[in-house]
């Protein structure tokens, strides 16, 4: 592999991995506090992409304003789904929670299917992001450079919130033991709402970034991306935000590098996340940075 191809792969892998990481954080935080595999999370990402698109087309918003609009709507949507579908089931068996999550996922997919049609729409990439940068032999689109940089900044902010602020401390405490947290005078429902808002905001940005790099949006786009991001979260160790970021990057890089090195495996691209996950879990059943939720519950 010559150097320019290597650099190209690095940029692409970085870009893809950071998008998985953005979405995986939402999964891992919700799993951390509620022990719920939030199957609707990938669809919130899809909603983010759609809202941004229609903000630009129907409301004539500039790109940045449309992103802010999408982030706000998705944060609200995260809180609403929590209030309607998950909050009444806090004390119910976890499987009912999972089924309502699947229900919300079906609902969002089909709602967007009915309203906007099932055919893919071409996402509008603003001109300043379409510019192509040339470094010697390497040519990359502006968006492929900006996306991972902004993602890293967002990840830093998220980690700062989680590890340096009072709310972050409350979130981590909730993930550790939800019953004691209530006794300590923390409003668990408020913290869970914050977790959903934060995760959905990151998912919305992930969805917009995804659409910048692969400019075609459709109502079912969130399903597979969401599941791969969830695999990334489990791979890194579910419940750990650092693990989600690590898992996202591992899966992003693997997809890019394997497809680039041996194109005959490109048909298996979507399965890499799961193959990797299975291999890791066989040797380290709690993921790379995770701890065992099943055992630590008592």
């Amino acid at each position, binding site marked *: 592999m010559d150097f320019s191809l290597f650099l190209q792969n690095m940029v692409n892998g970085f870009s893809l991995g950071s998008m998985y990481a953005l979405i995986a954080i939402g999964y891992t935080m919700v799993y951390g506090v509620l022990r719920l595999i939030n199957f609707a999370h990938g669809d919130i990402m899809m909603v983010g992409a759609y809202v941004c698109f229609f903000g630009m087309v129907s409301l004539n918003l500039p790109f940045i304003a449309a992103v802010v609009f999408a982030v706000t709507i998705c944060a609200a949507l995260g809180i609403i789904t929590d209030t309607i579908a998950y909050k009444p089931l806090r004390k119910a068996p976890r499987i009912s929670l999972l089924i309502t999550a699947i229900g919300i996922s079906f609902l969002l997919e089909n709602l967007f299917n009915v309203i906007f049609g099932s055919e893919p729409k071409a996402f509008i990439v603003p001109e300043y992001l379409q510019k192509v940068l040339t470094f010697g032999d390497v040519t990359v689109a502006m968006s492929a450079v900006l996306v991972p940089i902004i993602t890293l900044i967002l990840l830093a902010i998220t980690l700062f919130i989680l590890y340096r602020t009072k709310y972050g401390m409350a979130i981590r405490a909730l993930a550790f033991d939800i019953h004691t947290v209530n006794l300590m005078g923390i409003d668990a429902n408020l913290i869970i709402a914050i977790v959903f808002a934060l995760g959905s905001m990151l998912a919305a940005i992930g969805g917009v970034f995804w659409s910048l790099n692969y400019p075609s949006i459709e109502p079912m786009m969130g399903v597979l991306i969401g599941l791969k991001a969830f695999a990334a979260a489990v791979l890194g160790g579910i419940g750990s935000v650092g693990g989600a970021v690590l898992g996202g990057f591992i899966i992003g890089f693997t997809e890019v590098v394997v497809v680039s090195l041996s194109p005959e495996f490109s048909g298996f691209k979507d399965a890499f996340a799961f193959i990797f996950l299975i291999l890791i*879990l066989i040797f380290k059943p709690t993921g790379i940075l995770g701890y065992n939720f099943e055992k630590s519950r008592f």
Partner: protein
Amino acid sequence: MRVPKITHIIFFALAVGFLVASHYIFDDYSLRVLNNIAIFIILAVSYNLINGVTGQFSLEPNGFVAVGAYVAALILLDADAKNYQFDLESPAAFVLWLHSSNFLLALLAAGVCATILALVLSFPVFRVRGDYLAIVTLGFGFIIKILAINYPSITNGSLGLSSIPQHATLYYTGGIAIISVIMVLNIVYSKFGRAMKAVRDDEDAALAMGVNTFAVKTTAFSTSAFLEGVGGGLWACSFASIVPNEFDFYLTFQLLIIIVLGGLGSMTGAILGTILVIGGGEWLRFLDEPISMFGHTFDAMPGLRMIVFSVILILVMLFAREGIFGKRELTDVARSAIKRLKR
């Protein structure tokens, strides 16, 4: 046996009677829906064995159904049909060699192949527990679908297989559904079934009491895989064509919804859940067509059916948390109702 044998015989007679009578009562469309329901009863009841009774949160039935469907289809199609159908790549030698016109033999082979796969997979799968097991099995189910797409010399890739002989009439699907319900109930009420429930309720305690939990889980997994494979074979022979995308997560989620809606671990719950989800989903089809309401005709909105379905699903889960039957069977419910009447 926990329930008196006479109730069993009555239920059996009612089921067989309904099966025979339905051919005289219903039209072709309803028979197709019933056929569909019968296949899903086999899938749901066998999925319930691993997920509801043994408590292992497997998300893999789609993989086993896919294996069963492909094995049955490849056995029943003859060499000419394969040569004619395979567009992407010419069929592999063993695929051409594989042929038998015996439908039941093909179903058996479908079940056996799924069982072998389950036995192999149980080694990596049961190294992990709980939600980790869910994501690992989800991954395997997905990998099986990807394999079906990427080996066109065996499966004809994403185009799938078609003109599979439609042997699976309602007599076959309904009959096999009845047999599999009896089979699963016999397992659940055997010594082995109690071990399964022990693993579900507290795996560590069961292990401490001398239950070989790995053997129990593997047996439950492969038994359920056998029936899912047979169900997949019936699927192929009833719809006459299969494509890999039919065996996506969506199928697993549908089965999960069915068994949770009916009540995890309850066989009558699984049957009722199937009737509600598959039959009800069919009944809601009118929503996808133009609707006249209050003298005004609304345009057809394809997809409205699924919106209504998901809203109903969320509402049912919010208000009936344990599903309709909980962990009980119809006979338990009937018995407690009789007790309450006597009082």
